[in-house]
């Protein structure tokens, strides 16, 4: 333990609040170090001198003035418990702002639902006539096809539509 370390624990040592390990270390240092020993003794003397600092007595009117001020305090209203404390009010306000912010910035509320719905609608539109398109009877009975040469009944299928055109040529 060096002089700097001793200075940190010297006050606690002098007023007997240091633990036994600290006390032992400081005592060992004080035996060897003249400067720290002198400082320790001067601290001790200082505390003795400081006892001379006079104390004052409160004036005779002190108690009466306190009682007067206490008596002048307004009585507590029955609804006072409902008035929020400043800290409580601030906390509640911050909580409310935080809740609103979280709701607004939540991904659930970022118009995902309408977007999903529109996508589903588009998909639905795309596939809702799929059965018609895939219905060969409907396709073959179209008016446009009636102008074409009769198709070979043996050839029946989507691929024959392409094959019928060259057949007319």
């Amino acid at each position: 333990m060096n002089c700097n370390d001793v200075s940190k624990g010297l006050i606690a040592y002098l007023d007997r609040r240091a633990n036994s390990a600290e006390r032992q270390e400081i005592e060992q240092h004080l035996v060897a170090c003249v400067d720290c020993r002198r400082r320790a003794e001067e601290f001790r003397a200082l505390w003795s001198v400081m006892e001379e600092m006079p104390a004052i007595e409160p004036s005779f009117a002190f108690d009466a003035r306190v009682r007067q001020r206490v008596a002048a305090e307004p009585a507590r209203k029955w609804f006072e418990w409902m008035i929020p404390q400043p800290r409580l009010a601030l906390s509640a306000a911050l909580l409310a702002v935080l809740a609103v912010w979280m709701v607004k910035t939540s991904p659930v509320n970022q118009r995902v639902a309408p977007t999903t719905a529109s996508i589903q609608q588009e998909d639905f539109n795309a596939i809702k006539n799929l059965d018609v398109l895939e219905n060969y009877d409907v396709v073959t009975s179209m008016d446009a096809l009636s102008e074409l040469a009769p198709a070979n009944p043996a050839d029946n299928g989507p691929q024959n539509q392409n094959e019928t055109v060259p057949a007319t040529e």
Partner: protein
Amino acid sequence: MQLSGITGVRYTVEAMTRTDVQLMLDVKAGDDSSFDFLLQKYRSPLVNFLYRMVRDTATAEDLAQEVFLRVYRARKQYTPSAKFTTWLFRIATNLALNSVRDTRYQKMSVSLDAPADGEDSAPLELPAREKRIDQKMIERDRMEMIRRAVWGLPEKQRAAVLLHKYEEMDYAEIAKILECSESALKSLLFRAYETLRVQLAPLVVQPSTAGRRLAGSVQEGRSL
């Protein structure tokens, strides 16, 4: 709230057996006589602490009254989470620090740089022709020198010294009052006492004699 006669004595004895926290809980429950007991118990320590902080008797009394008023106002919200004195002196310390800063009491501080530097400039060094001066005057001068040295400390150091030296509080309680760590408090106290040691050097015992005495006590295995 007035105490009188046998009833008052019985009341005082009963009140003394209760802790400060119990008394304060009684105040919370509406017992104003417990508040009166706390007032009588702590008015003097509070006024003295505040006087040593703000250096003015009237201001110290006003602030002490304000402390008790705040305690009374806060009675319904009181919860015994800490020692009563910690709470009481924390209010007092905050009020004192605000008062010192607001009213700029530091302007009134007297420079104490000179006395520690040498015998020639020490205010208590009496000329030979005044050796017959009355002992009371010497004591008065010593007290004044001590008071000025304490008043010359920075506010927080002063509060720490007053709570440590005069209120004899432990480090944990002072640290709570001053809102700092115990380690920081020990540094604060060391700096403050080091300043006072230098400022009041003419009043402390002769180092050579003291050093020998301390060495003897340490070697004998006795703590200070």
